C-alpha cells in the first residue's frame, strides 16, 4: 500500500519534471530562434544612427527607447543577443567537449600524463577565472572571438575534473571488467560504456555553466576586452551606456534585461535537466 503510494508520488514528480523540461526547452528554443532571426525580427536597423531621435525614453515606436546615437535599443538588444547567445553556446560546447575528452582519457589511463594534465587544470582553477581570462584576453587583443578563446582557456578544467572523477568511479565497476572480457578494446570501452554513463553529469554542468559563461563573456565585453563597438553585444552595450545610467536608465537596463532573462532561462533549464537526469528519477521510477 505505502509502496504503491510512493511509486505514484515518484511518477507524479517525474511527470512534473518532464512538463517543466518541455516548457523550458520550448522557451529556450524560442529565445534561440529569436536570436537566430534577430536581423529580420528587429523593427529598425540596429546600426542606423539618427541623432534627432537620440536618448528617447521607451515609447510605442521604440519600446526600449533609443541610445545616444538614436539607434533603436530593442533592435540592438535582439541583434546583440545573437552575438551573446551564440558566442556563449559555442564557448560552452567547445570547453565541455574538450574538457570531457581530456578528463575521460586522464581518468581511464591514469599515469604520468594524468598527473601533469591535472596539475595544469589545478593551476587554472587556482586563479579567479575572470581575472585570468582578462589577462589572456588582453594578451590576445579584443574581439569577441578572442574573448571566447580566453574564457575557453581558463574554463575547460571544470569539465575535465567532472569527467575524470566520473570516469574513475565508473572504471571500477564490474561492467567495465565484463566489457574487457568481452574483448572490447580501450577505445570501445570508453565510447560504448564510459562516455554514455558520464554524459548526464557533464550535460548538467554544461547547462548550468551557460549562464555563468554568458555573464563572464558580457563582463569581458563590458571591460572592452570582448566584442568591439559598434558590434551590438549585451556586455559592450551596457558598458557604453553606463555613464548615462542616472539620466537614461533604459540604455543600460535593456541589455541588462536581455542578460537577465537568458541567464535565468538557461539556469532553470539546467536545473530541470539535472532533476530529469537524477537516478532516483530514472526509468525504474
Amino acid at each position, binding site marked *: 500500500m505505502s509502496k504503491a503510494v510512493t511509486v505514484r508520488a515518484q511518477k507524479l514528480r517525474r511527470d512534473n519534471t518532464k512538463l517543466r523540461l518541455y516548457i523550458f526547452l520550448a522557451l529556450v528554443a524560442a529565445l534561440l530562434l529569436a536570436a537566430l532571426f534577430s536581423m529580420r525580427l528587429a523593427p529598425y536597423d540596429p546600426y542606423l544612427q539618427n541623432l534627432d531621435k537620440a536618448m528617447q525614453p521607451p515609447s510605442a515606436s521604440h519600446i526600449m527607447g533609443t541610445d545616444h546615437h538614436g539607434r533603436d535599443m530593442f533592435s540592438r538588444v535582439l541583434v546583440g543577443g545573437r552575438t551573446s547567445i551564440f558566442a556563449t553556446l559555442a564557448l560552452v560546447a567547445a570547453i565541455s567537449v574538450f574538457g570531457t575528452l581530456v578528463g575521460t582519457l586522464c581518468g581511464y589511463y591514469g599515469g604520468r600524463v594524468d598527473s601533469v594534465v591535472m596539475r595544469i587544470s589545478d593551476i587554472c582553477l587556482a586563479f579567479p577565472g575572470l581575472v585570468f581570462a582578462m589577462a589572456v584576453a588582453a594578451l590576445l587583443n579584443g574581439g569577441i572571438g578572442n574573448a571566447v578563446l580566453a574564457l575557453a582557456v581558463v574554463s575547460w578544467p571544470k569539465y575535465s575534473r567532472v569527467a575524470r572523477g566520473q570516469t574513475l568511479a565508473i572504471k571500477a*565497476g*564490474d*561492467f567495465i*571488467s*565484463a*566489457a*574487457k*572480457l*568481452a*574483448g*572490447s*578494446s580501450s577505445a*570501445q570501452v570508453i565510447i*560504448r*560504456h564510459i562516455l*554514455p*554513463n558520464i554524459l548526464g553529469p557533464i550535460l548538467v554542468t554544461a547547462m548550468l555553466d551557460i549562464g555563468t559563461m554568458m555573464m563572464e563573456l558580457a563582463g569581458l565585453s563590458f571591460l572592452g576586452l570582448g566584442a568591439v563597438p559598434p558590434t551590438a553585444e549585451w556586455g559592450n552595450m551596457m558598458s557604453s551606456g553606463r555613464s548615462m545610467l542616472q539620466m537614461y536608465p533604459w540604455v543600460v537596463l535593456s541589455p541588462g534585461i536581455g542578460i537577465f532573462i537568458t541567464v535565468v532561462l538557461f539556469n532553470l533549464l539546467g536545473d530541470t535537466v539535472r532533476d530529469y537526469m537524477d537516478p532516483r528519477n*530514472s*526509468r*525504474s521510477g
Partner: protein
Amino acid sequence: MEPILEVKNLTKIFQKRGKKDFVAVDHVSFQLFPGEILGVVGESGSGKSTVAKLVTRLIDATEGTIAVNGRDITHAKGAALRDIYVDMQMVFQNPAGSFDPRRTLGDGISESLKNHGVSKEERRKRVVGLLERCGLSKEFADRYPYEVSGGQCQRAAIARALAIGPKILICDEATSALDVTVQKQILELLQFLQKADGLSYIFICHNLALVQMFCDRVLVLYDGKVVESGTPDKVILSPQSEYTRCLVDAVL
C-alpha cells in the same frame, strides 16, 4: 592429462606511496584440468577475488606465470589478450553491477559476438538461444539490468559469459549476492552447463557447504597463501592446517 589452466607462483603486491606494501596474493600455484570444478575458499581479504582478477588479467601480476592451454598469458596485451577471453570468461559477484546500466541485457550478452564480427541478425538469434539455455525467455534481451531480479540478472551474466564459447569459467562469488533458493537454481544451472559443455570452473566462494557439494577439488586460501588443497571431503573432514580447521569449525 594436460591442465587447461596452470598458475605458478602467482604473486600480487599492492604498492602505495607512504604505506607498507600489501601482499594480497603470495606465491599461489594451482592447476585446473578440463572438465574440473576447482573451488577456492577463504575468508574476506584472503585474496580470492584478487586471484580471479589476476587470472583474467584484469590486473597485472607482480610475479609468477599464468598459462592457458600451455600458452603463457602473463604479459599478453591488446589483441593477444582479447584472444584469451575466447577461452576464459568470468561471472561476477554482483549481477546488476556487471551490466552497463544504460544498455539492455541483450546488448551486454552479445558484446563479445559484436567484437568478433558476428552480424546483427545472427547475434539476435544467438542471444535468444543463450537466454533460453540459461532459463530466461527471449523478452529479457530487451530489459535493462535494473528491471530484472538478481537471480535473473545472474542468469543473463552466465549467458553473456557463455556467448563466445569459453572453456574456462571463473565464478567470483557468483552466488553470494543471491538468496538461498536462487543460489540453488544458479548452482544447478552451472552444473548443467558444465556437464553439457565440458567446461572447467574456478568456483570462488566462502561457503564451505556449497564447495563440498559442488567442487571436485578445493584450495583453501589464507592471507594470500594456499594453506591446503585436495578433495572437498578430505579438506573438510580431515583438515591439516590450523586455519582450515577454524574455517570448518566456524560452519559446524
